[in-house]
């Protein structure tokens, strides 16, 4: 699993870096940033799902090997 942020949608609510601080951080203006290359270790998959499911702007996306899905 990988995480992505659609920066055209992100408004800096910060739910992703609140809920999954190992996967997301913030920039100098509070917009969400994917840490590293966005790869999600298996132990962090639940955090990644929570971050995507709680983003008010639906800017966090999860992808796996074959499909891209928006949650």
């Amino acid at each position, binding site marked *: 699993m990988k995480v992505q942020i659609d920066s055209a949608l992100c*408004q800096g*609510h910060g739910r992703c*870096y609140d809920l999954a601080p190992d996967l997301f951080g913030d920039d*100098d*203006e*509070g917009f969400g940033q994917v840490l590293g290359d966005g790869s999600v270790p298996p132990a962090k998959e639940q955090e990644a799902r*929570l971050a995507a499911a709680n*983003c008010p702007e639906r800017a966090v996306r999860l992808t796996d090997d074959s499909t891209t899905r928006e949650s």
Partner: protein
Amino acid sequence: MTVDDRFARDFREPRDDQPLGTRNEIITGPVADWATDFSHLEPEWAADPYPIQDDLRQRCPIAHTDRFGGGWLPTRYEDVAAIAYDTEHFSSRAIIMSNFRPPHELAPIGGSPPISSDPPFHHDARKLLLPAFTKTAVSKQEAATRAFCHSLINAFDGQDIVDAARDYAQHIPMRVIADMLGFPPEDGPQFRQFVENTLEGVNLPPDERIARMTALFDYLLAQVHDHLDRPREDLTTYLINAELYGQKLQPSHVVGTMALLLIAGIDTTWSAIGASLWHLAQTPADRSRLIAEPALLPTAMEEFLRAFAPVTMARLVKDDTTWHGADMKADDWILLSFPAANRDPAQFDRAGEVVIDREVNRHAAFGLGIHRCVGSHLARMELRVALEVWLERIPEFSLADPADVEWSAGQIRGPRALPLRIG
């Protein structure tokens, strides 16, 4: 070095070329039918708006009123979100639904940028503020906020009944924003008047309303002059020195933004803290669970923000349009109810219940789109610390008398009187 003389002359002095806004008749009194005559300023709405919103969502999801010169009230999440995202058809030139519409020439800046601003100016004015309000930046206020919360509780000193709205919740955001703006902490009581005048004085006679707003701007100008004489590390000095497009900000921009930060920073968070304590005071199961599982508080807090979202915004329709079946006219108000959106069963399971371990909670308490509350990280820090300290110090509390709880009327809703029996 040149002297900064932007504030030497009062920028509010009327000029002949200044356009006027429009006023309409003030209509108050009981609402006949909420679908055709709604008013968020009536006591029934202040006391409990949720049944009204639930009913409207079922039978008339975009309600109308002739009050305030005409306006609309969407109650479905999808409609509230769509309007928040649609800056092409809906302007933020005014964001408090009242009986006065500021002149069109005020757009795209508005009276209190960036909340009153439209694209493209909005983006640049907002960018100036964002760095001061990131999660990292506001975390620097946390230790002082925690110490202040403890000092408020220390002052309860043996009383059996305390007013959690008046003696606790309101003081926390007042102190935090005063510190950030560099205003004297003892000025708090004046801030409360400014807040009430701006947000709850909407149906006062125009002359009275103007006189009250003048007092706020007089206060802010005095603070600007004090900061010009003695610059310091705070948001006021920052705004005085800030530049946009290679020039320092217009004086009306500096003072308008200070007004925004002061007003929007206070009663919103005050309301969120108060509403959360109101819920916990009458829900012992949630209270004891949070004391047993403090790590659940951030999740519970999001649920309090969803269920008791304090903030409703407003927009003005730009041009005549038929929008989702509603025949909207230019300059009609939109009352953009994030609280109603947050209780839409189409968006949330068990929308009318408070579920403190709700894991998926895509609520809109801080707005959606480009106007996302710039202070949301600050508000969350204050709410979390205020609840942590309260639950640690006062694990047992209940409503002293439910009939004594009073809620504010208008676009910011929260308890203004909340007598609690403690201990």
